[in-house]
Every structure is written in C-alpha cells, then in structure tokens.
C-alpha cells in the first residue's frame, strides 16, 4: 500500500549527495583505502606471448631485490585456489576454464604467469623485471578470422575448431517463409574489438581481520558475486569474507566480472596473514580486463516490395577470447547479439546460428550494452539498406515495421514479452524534433555539400534491462541470481538507513535510491542515507550491471519501504491516538489522515519503538523499525529510444564531425532526470568512440599493438557534440515503480545512429559502410579522388 499520493515527491533532478566529497578529492577509491601497516604490494609478471608453454620460471634474481617478500607461480597458487570455472549450464557449451595464474600454458598476451609481493610498488616493479620465464612459443589464433580458419591452432584442446558455443534458433516455419520472400538482401557487419576502459583501473586490498576473517576491498560492480566467488575458489566460508566496493571510478561492465587477480590477492592474504594490495596500471587494464564486441553479423532479410520485413536470418560470430569471463561465460555476447537483433520491430520469422569463438586474446565480456550496440548497428543498417533498395526513406521503412501502440503488449518471436513501450512514438517524435524531413529534402543525391558528405543516421533501439533470474538461467548463467534486496532501517534519531544490494560506479545510487526511499517512506530526502557495496551490511543480490539499478534497487527499496512504513505506522498510531489505517507518513512525520496538524516526527516514533520513552512500546508481536525485502524483476524489461545523428564527412581528409544529435527516450518512471541525462551523454560518448576511433588491435602474432591511451584513442570533449534529449513518459507496466533501465541505451543507440549516418553520407557515391571503427584513413580510401571541392582541380 502506497503512502499518501498527495505528498510531495522527492523526485526530480536533485543534486547528488556524492558530489561534495568527490569534488573535494575526498573520495575513497581502492588505491585510497588506508593501507594497514605491513601491507605488501603485488605486481604480476605477464606473458609477452599469445600462446606458449611455460617451461620454467626462475625467480632467484627477483628475490634478491631489497623489499621483495615472495614470488609465486601458477603452481604455488594452485595449492591455494581452484581454477576458475563459470559453470554455465547450457547444452553444447564448452567450458574455457582458467588457472588463477597460468601454470603450464599461457593463452593471451598479458596473462599472468607469476606474482611478486614486495614492501612497495616500486620494489615490486624492480623485481618483476628480474623474473626469468622460459617459454616455448606456439602458433596462435589471436584474431577471430584466424581462429575460425580451418586448421587454426586450438585455444583449448577440447574445442578443436575453437567454437566454445554454438546456439541455434528457428521460429516455426521459418525456412519456407524465408524462401518465399519477395525480396532479399544480405549484409555482413563487422564490429571491431573495443573495451570499457574506465578511468580508474582495477585493484584490491585484502586484509586479515580477527580469527580467520578477511576484509577485501575491490574496485568492483559485483561485491556479493565476488564474495561468493572467493568463497568457492578458496574453499572458505562466505561468512569469513567481507567484500567492500569502495568508491569505484567507472565500471561499464568491465568491473562486473570476477577476475583471477581477486582470487590471487585473497589467497595471498590468507596464506601470509598479511594485508596485500594490488592496483592495475593502465597497460594491464587494457591488456587483461575484458574486451568486447569483436563480432561478425551476417544478416539476411526477406521483405516485401513495400518494405515490410517478413523474415530475418542471422549468422553471428563473437570473439570470446581465451577464457570465459566469470560469472557470465563465453556465450554472453553470442547469445545477447542473437537474441536482441529483432529490436523494436514486428519480425515474426527469425532464425539464427550464433557462435562464441575462442581466440588467443584477452577474455571477452560484458562491456556496456553487451552485444546490443553491435546488433543494433546491424538491424538498423538493414533498415537503411531496405530503404536504399526500394527508394524508400529509411524512416518510412522503420515505421512500417515498428511495434505500434495497438500491437502491444508485444511478445517477440523469441518469446520475450515487451511491456508497454513507445517504439513508434519515439521514432515519430525524433523525426519531427530533429528536422529529419527537411534535411532529407535538401540532401543532394551525392550528399556532397560544401566539401563534406553529409548524412543522417537513425538508431531505433530497445535495450533489455533489469534481468530477472529466468533471463540468466535461459542462457545457462547459474551464478547470476537475478534478484536484489534492500534493508531499510529507521535509526533512533528517526533517520533512515538504506542498504541496497547494488554497487555504484558513478550512476548516483546514493542519491537516486534515497529519492525512491524518501518518496515511499514519506521522509525528507535529507533524512535518508544510502549504503552500498559492503557485503556485511547489505543484503545479497545480483549487484550492478545490465541497467538494473533503478528496476531492482528501486523495486527492493519500494518493497522494504512498504514494510517499514507499516512498522512505523503501528508504532505511531498509539502516539497519535488513532487506528493504524488513519496514519499517513509525510515529510518525516507520521500524521493523521485529514488532520495533518496531529503529527509526530520520525524521531519520536523511533524513540518509542526503541523503548527510550516512558510509555510502554505497543503490545503484541515483535516490533522494530527494520525491513528487508528482496525483489525479483520481470525476466527482462524493455526500454526503448530513438537516436538520430547528423554527420559531415570531410571529402578531403575523411574526418567525421557530428553536427547534430538527438535522442527521444523512454526509460519508464524517472527518478532523477539529471542522472538519466548523464547516463545518456556518457553512453553516447562511448558509442561515438566505438564507431569513430576505438579499436583494440591484435596483430597476427597476438601482440596487442595499442595498449596505451596514446594509441587506444577515446573521445575527448571535442569529439562529443551537444545533444538534445527528449523524454517520453511511459512507466513500465511490469516493474514495481514503473522503472525501466537506462544505463546502456546511450551506447546502443549511438553506435547505430553514427555508423548509419556515415553510411548514409557516403551512400550517394556508392560506398558501402558496414564496419567499425570508421577512422579517417579507412573512410578516405573508400571515397573517390575525383570528389573534391571546386576550389582546386588537378588533372
């Protein structure tokens, strides 16, 4: 039962409570956590080879370095920790397990082969230079294309063709419908490998506590899953491990993974009973944190002469890297891309064959969007191509296929239910707000205006947010719970503490969750304090990734708030002299409905509940002002938006400028508009980077060529245009609170919009753009030399 609807909501663009201390430099990131005396610092020795047998390790010279405490190899660690196994329960799935430190074989450049513990980081680095490792270098399959070639070296012996997972789906009657298509079109989209690259590299500090216990600080998005993972791999009880996610400097899914270094650090802490600390440097960050989106989408679509899609076929190859990422496994991208391809369209016949391919490169995993940016690029690229083939405006093609209000609720061909959405409305609104029609009308056939090819691209997208348990189990991810929890507790002072099973890495949870709690408790926002990231105080949950914060954190808080509200009312009722059902909560007071002058503050209620007053507490069963609730969201909540990008491609140097950018967005009930907008800005910036400049480059020998920020280029302020953001209000019909997720939409829509805009810009000169990244060198080579502005013509 909700509280008085007339109460002022604590919603809206409230300034963040996190900011004051972050702005003063008083944040506590993992490298800032106070180091107990005697902390040892770890550095890892990394493999310089993509595939090699380890013949021997000689640490004798390293041990001579003053300050060095120990050097341990994979065999030493194997005595302390089990190999990592994701336990994916999916028919046909082949595991790609991993020793926490490589023992006999390395499978990617950057894989750890030894760890040095020393008194300080400088000494540790002196020592790793002196660790001698003897390798027998073996032929490697570092890239997707190499790994798929016949006879390629196998990354894992039990997957001789390097296919770790092959998934297939075919809707009933697909073959005949597809064969009978009036028109057919095929395209292959090649998305390049990228990575999340949060500004804060990963790290952890493990310190013994009394008895056998340990506190484990780690820069993570998944503290509870880390704790479970540590307990599993170290063979010790979960209750002995307290995991704390401190302030986390960006995650983007890169830190939603449980990594071997975490096991190593925890194991060393337990072994030596000393605090141990490790923080990545940027090169390690680039080399060994999860990579993503190295994908090939071979798409074939059958459609009618008026552009209505009848059938869609996908063959997808996703680079899974050398080992499976924990807890999601090697198939996360292969399945994600395949299952989300149909997008917001009424495609009733669909078939796919998807493949997770092992390569001698860093493990792939869950970078913001998780395959959706790439598959959205593919389906949106198909829409544009249908338009070009038929001479129809690409927006018109989309409108003829998109789910409209009367089609809802929609269950897609895969059986996924889309709750209430505004797929058509956002598209139509974006068309109007962006001036799309006027742009099209003025676009010359060759698109060349003032020396630049100008085009417009659309990213009409859905994102799967807030996954519940079934969403993960259907993909075999047995270690991802799907539920989240919240504990709300009223303190003796009447303030409310909120403990949520989430872990923020910039999304403003301390503010947004306080807003939800305040609204549902009838409390002032200032009376709420939110706590996250500490497994000893927060309830168990799935933690934070895949745009689930608002849905599951919000949902759990709403439930717990309902319970706590009841408790408060039960204690307040006798203080107010009215029955419980006449008590409402507003503005941190319990008051009588229709007689608000009769009110008692939360502080008074709390003191009464905690027996700090003369009056006896209410009789009856247990009272106390604390409630814990868990919330299982719907299997998947679909959010939608439409991105439109206008670009100009310089005909002489190939550089791309984004001249205008617009998003019309539906994320259901909005908690804090400012935070939502910030998520979109950030996602779009990453999408721009992904399309125009970011790429992880492995050469044919598996050397990671650009493992520094000089060479892995990320967008700066000059690369990101101002954006117009427009919101459509359509609460989810299925989630508690009506929330839909928003964290990943920015990158999903922008990859499609920007790449399609460039493709549109060059379509007038017969150039086909179907890959990322679109660097100036690549684009210029596609453009004919003759297309130069009139200013200077050469023979």
């Amino acid at each position: 039962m909700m509280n008085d609807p007339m109460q002022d909501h604590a919603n809206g663009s409230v300034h963040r409570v996190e900011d004051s201390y972050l702005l003063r430099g008083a944040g506590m990131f993992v490298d800032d956590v106070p180091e107990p005396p005697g902390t040892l610092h770890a550095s890892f020795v990394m493999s310089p080879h993509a595939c090699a047998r380890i013949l021997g390790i000689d640490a004798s010279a390293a041990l001579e370095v003053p300050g060095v405490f120990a050097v341990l190899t994979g065999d030493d660690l194997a005595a302390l920790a089990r190999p990592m196994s994701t336990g994916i329960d999916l028919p046909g799935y082949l595991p790609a397990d991993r020793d926490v430190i490589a023992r006999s074989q390395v499978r990617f450049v950057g894989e750890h082969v030894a760890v040095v513990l020393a008194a300080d980081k400088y000494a540790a680095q002196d020592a790793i230079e002196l660790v001698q490792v003897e390798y027998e270098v073996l032929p490697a399959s570092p890239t997707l294309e190499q790994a798929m070639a016949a006879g390629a070296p196998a990354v894992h012996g039990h997957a001789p063709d390097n296919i770790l997972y092959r998934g297939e789906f075919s809707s009933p009657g697909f073959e005949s419908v597809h064969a009978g298509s009036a028109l057919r079109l095929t395209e292959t989209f090649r998305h390049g490998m990228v990575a999340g690259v949060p500004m804060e590299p990963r790290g952890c500090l493990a310190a013994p506590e009394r008895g056998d216990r340990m506190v484990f600080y780690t820069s993570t998005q998944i503290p509870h899953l880390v704790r479970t993972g540590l307990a599993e791999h170290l063979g010790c009880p979960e209750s002995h491990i307290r995991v704390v996610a401190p302030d986390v400097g960006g995650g983007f899914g890169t830190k939603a993974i449980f990594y071997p270094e975490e096991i190593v650090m925890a194991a060393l802490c337990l072994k030596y009973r000393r605090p141990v600390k490790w923080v990545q440097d940027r090169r390690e960050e680039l080399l060994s944190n999860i990579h993503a989106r190295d994908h090939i989408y071979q798409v074939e679509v059958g459609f009618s002469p008026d552009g209505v899609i009848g059938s869609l076929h996908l063959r997808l190859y996703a680079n899974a890297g050398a080992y499976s990422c924990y807890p999601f496994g090697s198939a996360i991208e292969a399945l994600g891309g395949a299952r989300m391809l149909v997008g917001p369209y009424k495609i009733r016949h669909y078939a796919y064959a998807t493949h997770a391919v092992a390569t001698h490169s860093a493990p792939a995993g869950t970078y913001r969007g998780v395959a959706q940016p790439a598959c959205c690029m593919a389906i949106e690229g198909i829409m544009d191509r249908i338009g070009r083939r038929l001479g129809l405006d690409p927006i018109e093609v989309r409108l003829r296929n998109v789910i409209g209000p009367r089609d809802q609720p929609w269950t897609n061909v895969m059986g996924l239910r889309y709750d209430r959405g505004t797929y058509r409305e956002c598209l139509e609104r974006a068309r109007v707000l962006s001036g799309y029609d006027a742009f099209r009308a003025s676009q010359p056939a060759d698109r060349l205006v003032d020396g630049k090819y100008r085009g417009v691209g659309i990213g009409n997208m859905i994102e799967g947010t807030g996954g519940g348990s079934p969403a993960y189990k259907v993909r075999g991810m047995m270690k991802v719970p799907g539920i989240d929890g919240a504990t709300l507790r009223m303190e003796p002072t009447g303030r409310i503490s909120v403990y949520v099973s989430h872990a923020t890495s910039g999304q403003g949870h301390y503010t947004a969750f306080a807003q939800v709690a305040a609204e549902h408790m009838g409390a002032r926002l200032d009376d709420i304090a939110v706590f996250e990231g500490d497994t000893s105080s927060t309830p168990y949950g799935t933690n934070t990734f895949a745009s689930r914060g608002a849905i599951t954190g919000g949902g759990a808080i709403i439930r717990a708030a309902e319970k706590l509200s009841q408790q408060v009312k039960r204690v307040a009722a006798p203080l107010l002299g009215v029955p419980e059902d006449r008590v409402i909560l507003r503005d941190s007071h319990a008051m009588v409905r229709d007689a608000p002058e009769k009110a008692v503050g939360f502080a008074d209620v709390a003191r009464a509940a905690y027996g700090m007053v003369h009056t006896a507490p209410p009789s009856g069963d247990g009272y106390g002002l604390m409630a814990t609730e868990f919330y299982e969201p719907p299997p998947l909540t679909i959010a939608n938006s439409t991105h439109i990008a206008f670009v100009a491609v310089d005909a002489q140097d190939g550089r791309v400028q984004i001249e205008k950018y617009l998003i019309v967005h539906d994320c259901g009930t909005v908690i804090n508009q400012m935070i939502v907008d910030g998520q979109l800005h950030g996602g779009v910036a990453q999408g721009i980077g992904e399309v125009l400049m970011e790429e992880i480059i492995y050469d044919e020998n598996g050397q990671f060529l650009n493992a520094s920020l000089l060479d892995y280029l990320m967008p700066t302020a000059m690369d990101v245009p101002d954006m117009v953001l427009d919101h459509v209000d359509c609460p989810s019909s299925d989630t508690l609170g009506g929330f839909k997720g928003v964290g990943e939409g920015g990158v999903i829509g922008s990859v499609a919009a920007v790449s399609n805009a460039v493709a549109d810009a060059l379509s007038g000169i017969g150039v086909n753009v179907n890959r990322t990244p679109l660097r100036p060198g690549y684009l210029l080579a596609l453009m004919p030399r003759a297309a130069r502005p009139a200013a200077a013509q050469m023979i």
Partner: protein
Amino acid sequence: MRSSKRNGGSPAWLRVFTPYEPKFRTDIVKPPKFEYYAPETLQEVLEVLAFYGEDARVLAGGQSLVPLLNFRIMQPAVLVSINHCQELAYLQQEESGLVCGALVRQAQAERSDEARRACPLLAAALPWVGGRANRNRGTVCGSLAHADPLAELTAVATALDATFILSSVHGRREVQADEFFLGDLSTCVEPGEMLEAVCFPASGPDASAAFVEVGNRWHGFAVVGVGAQLEFEPDGRYKSVRLAAIGVGGTPVRLQAAQDILLGTRGEPDALSEAAHAASAGLEPPGGFHADAAYRLRVLPTLIERAVKQADGLRNAQQGD
C-alpha cells in the same frame, strides 16, 4: 635506439617490435632507479654530462622522457635536471633570429608576443603540441631533442632551417635542422652534449604562418601535419615560402618542391594545387595502424593547401583586406 618495425602514427617507443620479441615490458609503470642531479648553472650541467657520457639524460619538461622511464623503455643511470638552471630560460630575438634556450617552456613561447612576431610559424604550431598541461612544462628544445617524427615543432625547425646549438664541456657547435634530425627519435646529439638552444631564423615583419594537422580524433596526436610560413612582396607575391610536414617520413620533411612552385606566385588555385601534388613525389611515408602510407600521401596535398591558404588569409586579415 633499437631497431623497430615502423608502425607510424605513434611514437616509436610504443611501437611493437618484431614478432615474438616484444621489447618492452607490458607490466611496468614505476620508473627505475637513477642518480639525480639538479645543477644550477649550465657549466655544471655540462660537467655532469661529460662525466657520465651516455649513461646520462637531460631532464627538462619530462613530457616525452618520463613516460619512457615509467615504462622502463629507457633506463638512464643518471638524470640531469635542468629545471633549476635559470640561465637556460632565455627567449629573445637576436640578429640571427629567435633564440630559445633549453629551459624555455612551450607555454612560455606560446604567450610571448616577441616570439610571435619573430617566428609566426612557431606561434602557429605551439597550440597543437599536446595539451596545456604538457605545454606548461614541456620545453621547445626538449621536444626537438626528443625528435619524435610526429612532433609539430620538428616541422617548424625543418621548415625554417633552424640552427641547433649543441654544447658540451668542449665547447659549442652549431648544426642545421637537416643534420640534426637523423631518424625516428634519433638526433646527432652526442653523449656528453646537450641541446643548449635553438635559433629560428628571423622572418620579415609581414610574415604569416599556419599549422594544420589531421588525426584520428579532433584533439590528439597528429597523423599528418603541415606547417607553412610565408613572406610577401609589396604586391602580394610570395617572397619566401617555408613548408614542412610531419607524418610522411621518419623525420620531418621539408617540402622543397612545393616551396619552389609557390615562390613568386600569389598562391592561386592552380599554383597551389600543383605545388600540393608535387610535394608527394619521392616520399615514403610510414604505415601503421593509425594510418597507412596511402592515407598520408593522399591527405598531404590537402593539408598543404589548407596551411598555405590559412597563412595567406592571415596576412590579408592583418592588412585589413
């Protein structure tokens, strides 16, 4: 410096070497131990350099050197900091030209009106060098001595045929730009020597200049860049044309052929186009993942035209045309 496979588009110290022999550690970010000296006079600097020879490196702004130390690509036994040697901070116009001592910060030169008047191409190029935080500490001479083939200032020195003043305990010698730059990160500075100053030849009072570059992102490292400095006859014809490019060779390239074609013209479209295209003859640009040789060759004429037009346009603006 070790030999390397050319990858172009990024400093050599980040390039990958021949297969199976990665020559730099992937796991180090703390610098190695070194002896540290901070002399306060040039004489002391030279004495320390003479004593340690090739074991010593000069530390000025550190913007290029310290990353190499952090990654331990370079492990000098001795660092001689000139940051406390104020006598090297001179920036002044002399008869020979604008003389820039070893401790002149890039930001200092950027702010200096005297430098702008004396050497417009230097003023035009400096805003492109790194970012403000790098220019505050990085030095003009330091960038030149590091000799990254993509450093904008190396194109300035090459275009203007700057004079490099090398000092040691044995005295001074002067070297011109084409003798100074030997290759990728390689100069003629001998062990025991330091680049004490660089002299950019004086330009006429009406000289105007421009620097243009392209890269894979709107702010960042150049893939190709061109500097142009023009001087004019009273009737507007070019009396002097100085052009150089980065990113089209292992060292900065003086675009002599283009200069010759433009001399005496007013930069008319036909002349400009002819000059721009003649510039590519004989060039063998490096390849690499940032941009291949084909891109560099194709974009060079465009940059030449843009740089000359911009410089020409600035002159017209100054004249109030």
